[in-house]
Structure formats: structure tokens, C-alpha cells
């Protein structure tokens, strides 16, 4: 049984790596401190809040932990050491994560003095009914899969009349499983839908250059929240410091909400996110929409185990606003019917689905209806569209639906990412959109159609602006980077199940 007030305080500090700095002598501390030990009483009220969340550290010394303490046993062997920030001004303990022992062998001698990046992860294993403990005292090497990126807040250059996407980010883990034509992303054991949501949001903030305190609302769509009751969005808001923070009480002035509608939980909110920044009295300059899932599937030999061949892991985040827009939201169309093609009952660990019923009356019907209605509404021909993206539960469905709608390969292939990441559920079509935004030129039209079982579709038409190119330089952690990466690690089926099951 964890004690919730302690949990709250630990994650408040640890998730963001909050610290303080004496404005008199410059001395820095991990964790908040009201005065500086060096300057004494005169430093009261002269301490500045700092944090190390976007910083790069150095692993000074480290050791291999082969026999962790009880709560850490599930993590398996890991490396543990001391990480310094700001040339040794602050030192913190840290665990190296994304760490799989190969053939039981390990040489950590080369680890020391390497640069590391803090990562937001689960802290250790707890009982299934307990609060999930998290921390960012987990690190990966800066020259590994996940690069260090500075978060530079930009002054807006241009106001737009139509709201749209001002920045986006995708996070997919470095572990993959390869079976047949499909590669699928696999979370590390300390990752889940919450950690991917935070990572995606962080990546989106870096790309957009938007001031985190100006984000007025965050939506997180997921169907694999580790909690039945407790939002992912509150974690995203707190860790990324969305909205203004009331220093005295540690509360963010932001609205945060989780949404659920199978795989369209995130895309459904695009129009809401865009509308809110457009509504003058809201005084909300920016909103963030996150789609995240550690896509669930029963083991292969169990009922519902067919999904186990397709599920992936990852998150996407899109920031909407009316300043420095990279893709304007031209229009949308959503449709819904009560179609039970895929579901997960409360307290059931894995979803079930309606077999062949999931295709024709479910996926195809809704996706085609939404796409055709949107095109009619905007009076668009297939040739007016540069890119078409649809929800990607497998390779066959999105290809067939694109072809039936009359789209050509050069229109639908750039956004087809399922063969690289698997079905990332709420992140699925948004990751396709991100892949397209990664390469689109100014003044191109993108249609994205999501699909959520249960069932419904959202179709959006986006028009890229001239600013898409300049902002692109701000993002190293692109879809391409996450696909063509020399540091990817491929795991076998047993390891995949263990990692996916998590702590």
C-alpha cells in the first residue's frame, strides 16, 4: 500500500526533476530549497525554481545492479549511478533504463562520463490496486535512440485566421518485435500509456516552440490507461507544466481531460482543441491533444489473441493554436453508430473483437462515410488531396480503403506507418499524420480519417502553411528517426510479452 500524499510529493518533484538555485551565489539543488546553505539567511526569498527535465546530464560513475531490491526486481538487471547536471553543480542518483542484458553479458566500463537524458518512467513495481509511482531519475544515453533536445520557447511570428496545428510530436519506444512483414514497437518494462503521453507532449512542445504555460487545455485519448479512474491528462499537465503554475500550491491553471473512444479517442478532440483556441472569450491561445496507447492484446493462444500480431506502443501529441500554424484545419466530418466490433469490459485485461465483423460493417463503412462526406462538404476531388491517412489496424485495411476511395499509392503510402510500429490504437492515424507532416511541402492538402471501434470516424482536412518547413528543423526525433535508427533493439516473443505486461 503506497501512501498517496508521499506519492504526490515525490512525483511532483521527481517527474519534472525540480530543483532550486540561489540567485546570490548560483548554487543549485535538486529538490526545492528555501535558502542556500552557502549564503545562509540572506538567501531567503532569493531562491529560484529550476528543473532538469529538458537538460542533458553526465553519468559520472555507475555500477551494474544484478540483484535489485524487491520493488525493482521486475525491472531485471540495470545500471545505476550518479548523474551530474550543469558541470557538476548538481548530482542526482539515476537508473539507466531501456536496458536489456544481451547474452547475460555486460560491460559498463564504457558507460561512465557519457551524456545522458532524463526520461519519465515508472519508478518500480507496486500492487495492481496501488497508485503507479513515476520518476524521471531514469536515464538513457544522449547518443542512443532518444536524442537530447533543447526546449526553446519562440516568440510567435504570425497570426492566422484559421486555427490549426502549430506543433506535434511522436514518441515510439526503441524496442521492436519483427514478425513477417510487420515491425512493431514494444514498450520497455517501465513504460506505459502515461509515459508515452508525456514523451509525445514533450516532443510536441519542443517542435512547436510554444510556451508551455500558454496551453489552456490538454486532451489525452487512450484505451490503455493503467487506471480505470484517474486521468492520464493530469500527469501530462503536471509534468509538462501546462498552463500557469500557482507556485504556492503546485496546481496548474489548465483544463485536462481524458477521452475514450477506442482508437479515435484522440482524433475526435482535434476539432474541439481547434475550436477552443478560436473562441475569443476562452483566452486559450493553445491546446494539446495526445493519443497514447500501450495497445492491449491477449496472449496469442487465448481468446482475442489474434490482435497480438498487430499491436504496437506509442503516443502522439498535436498542439493547436492560431499563431505560427503549420497546417490549418480546413474542415471536418464525424460520424457514429453503435457497432460492437471491438470492446473491453471493465476489469478485463484484454479487448475482444468481432472477427470478420470488424471490417465491412465497422471499419470500412465508417471510414468511407466520413471521408466522402468531408470531401463533399469541402467540394474536394481526389486529385485535390496530396495525402490521405486512415486508421491503421493492419496493413490490409488502410490500403483497401484508400484504393476504394480512389487514392493512389503516392497519396496514401507516406502516411501508412503500421508496418513499422504496429497498431498504436489512439496513436495510430495521428502517427500517420505526423509522418506526412514530417515531409509535406507548404500548401498541400492532407486528409486524415480515424476510426474508433464502437464505432465512429473523424475525417479532417488540413492545409499546410509556409511555416511547416522552418519548424521542421526544430525536431530531431522525427518518424524517420524512429524508424531508421541504428539503436533499435529487436526482441523475441517472450521478451515482448514481458515488456508489454510491464511493472
Amino acid at each position, binding site marked *: 500500500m503506497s501512501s498517496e500524499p508521499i506519492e504526490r510529493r*515525490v512525483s511532483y518533484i*521527481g517527474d519534472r526533476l525540480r530543483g532550486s538555485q540561489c540567485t546570490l551565489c548560483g548554487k543549485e539543488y*535538486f*529538490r526545492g530549497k528555501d535558502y542556500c546553505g552557502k549564503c545562509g539567511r540572506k538567501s531567503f526569498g532569493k531562491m529560484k525554481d529550476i528543473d532538469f527535465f529538458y537538460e542533458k546530464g553526465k553519468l*559520472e*560513475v*555507475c*555500477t*551494474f*545492479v*544484478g*540483484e*535489485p*531490491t*524487491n*520493488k*525493482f526486481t521486475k*525491472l531485471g538487471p*540495470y545500471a*545505476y*549511478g*550518479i548523474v551530474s547536471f550543469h558541470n557538476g553543480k548538481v*548530482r*542526482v*542518483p*539515476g*537508473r539507466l533504463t531501456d536496458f536489456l542484458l544481451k547474452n547475460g553479458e*555486460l560491460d*559498463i566500463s564504457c558507460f*561512465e562520463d557519457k551524456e545522458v537524458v532524463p526520461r519519465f518512467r515508472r*519508478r*518500480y513495481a507496486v500492487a495492481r490496486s496501488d497508485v503507479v*509511482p513515476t*520518476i524521471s*531519475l*531514469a536515464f538513457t544515453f544522449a547518443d542512443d535512440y532518444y536524442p537530447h533536445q533543447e526546449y526553446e520557447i519562440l516568440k510567435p511570428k504570425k497570426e492566422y485566421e484559421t486555427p490549426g496545428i502549430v506543433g506535434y510530436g511522436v514518441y515510439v519506444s526503441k524496442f521492436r518485435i519483427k514478425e513477417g512483414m510487420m515491425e512493431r514497437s514494444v514498450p520497455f518494462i517501465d513504460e506505459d500509456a502515461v509515459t508515452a503521453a508525456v514523451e509525445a507532449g514533450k516532443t510536441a512542445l519542443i517542435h512547436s516552440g510554444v510556451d508551455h504555460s500558454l496551453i489552456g487545455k490538454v486532451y489525452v485519448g487512450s484505451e490503455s490507461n493503467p487506471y480505470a479512474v484517474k486521468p492520464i491528462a493530469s500527469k501530462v499537465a503536471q509534468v509538462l507544466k501546462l498552463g500557469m503554475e500557482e507556485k504556492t500550491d503546485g496546481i496548474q491553471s489548465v483544463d485536462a481531460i481524458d477521452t475514450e473512444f477506442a482508437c479515435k479517442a484522440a482524433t475526435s478532440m482535434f476539432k474541439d482543441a481547434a475550436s477552443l483556441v478560436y473562441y475569443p472569450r476562452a483566452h486559450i491561445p493553445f491546446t494539446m491533444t495526445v493519443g497514447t496507447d500501450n495497445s492491449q492484446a491477449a496472449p496469442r493462444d487465448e481468446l482475442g489473441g489474434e490482435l497480438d500480431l498487430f499491436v504496437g506502443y506509442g503516443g502522439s501529441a498535436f498542439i493547436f493554436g492560431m499563431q505560427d500554424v503549420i497546417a490549418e484545419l480546413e474542415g471536418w466530418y464525424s460520424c457514429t453508430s453503435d457497432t460492437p466490433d471491438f470492446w473491453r469490459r471493465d476489469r478485463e485485461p484484454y479487448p475482444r473483437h468481432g472477427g470478420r465483423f470488424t471490417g465491412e460493417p465497422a471499419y470500412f463503412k465508417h471510414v468511407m462515410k466520413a471521408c466522402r462526406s468531408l470531401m463533399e462538404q469541402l467540394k474536394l476531388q481526389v486529385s485535390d488531396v496530396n495525402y490521405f491517412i486512415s486508421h491503421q489496424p493492419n496493413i490490409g485495411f488502410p490500403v483497401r480503403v484508400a484504393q476504394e476511395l480512389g487514392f493512389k499509392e503516392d497519396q496514401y503510402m507516406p502516411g501508412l506507418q503500421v508496418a513499422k510500429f504496429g497498431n498504436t490504437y489512439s496513436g495510430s492515424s495521428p502517427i500517420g499524420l505526423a509522418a506526412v507532416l514530417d515531409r509535406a511541402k507548404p500548401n498541400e492538402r492532407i486528409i486524415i480519417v480515424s476510426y474508433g471501434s464502437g464505432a465512429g470516424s473523424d475525417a479532417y482536412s488540413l492545409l499546410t502553411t509556409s511555416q511547416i518547413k522552418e519548424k521542421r528543423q526544430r525536431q530531431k526525433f522525427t518518424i524517420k528517426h524512429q524508424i531508421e535508427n541504428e539503436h533499435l533493439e529487436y526482441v523475441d516473443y517472450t521478451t515482448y510479452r514481458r515488456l508489454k505486461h510491464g511493472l
Partner: protein
Amino acid sequence: MKGQRPAIIGVGRTKFGEHYERGPEKLVEEAGLQALGLAGVERKDLDACYFSDYFLQITNKIGIEEGFLSELLELHVPMEKVRSFSSALLNACHAVQSGKYGVVLVGGMEKMTDRWDKIRDDLMLLEDPWSYYAGCTPEANHELLLSGYVKKYGISGEQLEKFNVALAQIAVKNHYHAIENEYAQYQRDITVDKVLKERSKACKSLGLYDFAPISDGASALILASPEIAKNYSDNPIQVLGSSSATDYVTFPSREDRTGFVASTMAMKSALKMTDIEVGDIQIAELYDQSTLLEMISLEDLGFSKRGKAWLDIYNSCKEYQGFYEIDGKKLFVNMNGGLKADGNPLGATGGAQIFEVVKQLRGEAGKRQVKVDGDMPKFGVISELEGFGTKAYVHILGEGLT
């Protein structure tokens, strides 16, 4: 401490190891009775008790140890509970010196094996919580200190091999000393090869044989003011100097991570209370929670030069004669087998260290008796740590400095 030097007039201890058939009261009773008996003191003569344990609350659900002790002794005198035995002794010394108490019982115990499956997690209570959250283990900081030390002094190649052997020799030496210690947890030999093999098995610089074990045990002593001591004992051992110092609980936040500044400070201030110098000390019971810490202690307490202790050990152990030779002087270290072989029941550990030095100074150590060039040793030091160098205690004992 000149003038009013408290004296140890009786010591007692149990065998260390796993005592699954005996509860805490039995262990305390055995050690206590032994100390009282040796001192010739009756329970009713006791003015106060100082008791030490780390985890009795967790291991045995005893939250007010003083009450437990009161019931055991059927005494109602003032009692205080602290963590380490050295801390209990330091507090007792202060009380006796102030003239408040004349005869004091100092006792310590631990029953770690009663929580065998969780004790390593419990031990993390001695580190800072953030290190625990980040995945630290009771052994990890030893490794980090070692790594930092090796880097700081640029020890590599052949030197590093020697360094590793020197640390292994510490374990071998301590096991060798424990053979003649009837109270020791492990009365058996080990070899350098065995130590090294366990390290490579664990893929680490320190392995199973580098660390002190998990133990149960109790220890006790009777402390008296000098005037009272004369009535009970012909050869009381005086506490000549006694001190402690404190450092940050968070190891990564400390200025120096290649040694324990608290040890150095405690030793300095304890020495200041005596009329002797480091070089006059012949016996040292050091806190070898790991082999590395015995080595580091040699430097922290000022016996070896910084960065050179391992070399002193290596050279002394090539053909080990029962002592370390440092700058031409003999230093007998951990004659009871140290924490490594004697055992490490946290709250009782310091009592066993003191037990050994008292026995040696009184010439009652039997087959383990140390003779320095034919003479009985005169001065001994005990250093004990709480946590990973968070608190350091140093006691310097000697016979009759007047």
C-alpha cells in the same frame, strides 16, 4: 575528556549469525548477563541504560525498545534508544562525564534474519529516499565509491589488478582472524580466488565475499565513572576519546565521494581528547561493511595516505603476518574477523568491535591476543558508521592514561 574518563568495566556478546530459534530477549539477556558478570555489577547498581538497534521496530514489531528492556531487566531507570552501539556508548560517555550517572549499561542488538526476504529493502532506509527511488541497492554505493576512487587516483592496468587483489585480501585476512573467534559468524578460511570469482559472477567490482553478512546478535558493556570503576575492576579500559560527525544522507550530493568526511572529522576530534597520535594506535576495529570500507577507513582515520591504503594492504598481505605495516608501523586491524567474518548485526556490531579492543587491551583475547613487538597493545580505535558514511563514530580506548 581528560580528567573524567569513563571506563569500561565489563563486556559481553553473543555469537553472531542466524539465531532463528532465539528471540530478541534471549540474545540481549546473554550479552547483558555476560557484561554484568564480568564487571561484577548487579542490575540494581545500574543508573541508566543506552540501547541501540536499527530495525527492531520492523523486524520484531518492538517500537519502544526501552520498555522492552525495562521489562527484561525489571528496572525502571532512565533508558534511551539510539541506532548504533557506538552512538549508545557516546551518549553514555557524555552522561557519565557530566556526573549524572555512575554505572550505565550499554547494549545493542539486531535480529535481521527475522525478515530475511525484505531486509535488503529495509537496509535502504539507511540511504536517502531518492537514491532508493532511482534503484539504489545496499551494495550500489560501495561500487560507486570504488569507481570514483579508482578514477580520482588514476588506478588502471596492473595497478588496478593489484587494487582488486588488495580488496580481496581484506576479506581473506578477516576470515583468517575469525577462525580463532568463537563468537564469529564464519569461522572458516576463504581464498583470494574465491573472492575474485564471486565478483566476476556478479559482473561487479565487489562480490558476495566483499560484503558483511546479514546477522543476528547482541552485545553489551558496562560503563562507569573512573571512581566507581576502581571499586569493580583492576584493569578498567578507559574511553580516552569519543566523538562523532555527520554528513549528508544523500551520497550523490556529498562534496567528496571517494571517502567519508564524517570519519575523518570524528577521528580528529576524538584524537584531540587524548594525548596520543594516530601512530600510537596499534589496534583498529574498522567498519568493513565491505572490503572497500576497511580500505577507505584506513585513509579516513589517517593511518594511510590518501590514495595509498590499497597499496599498504597489498604489500602487507603478500606474506601476511597478522597486521598491516604502514610507514614502518604495525597496525592490527579487525582481529575479530571484522564485520565480514564476525558478522554485522547492525545495532550490536559496534559492541563486538569494542568487545574485541577491550579484550585485546586487557590481554584476554586468547589465541587472538595481539602482541606488539612482545608487548601488550596500549591503544585501540573503533570506528563505526551509520548508513553509508552518513554518521561516523570513533572511540579511542586505552588502559590507564592518567
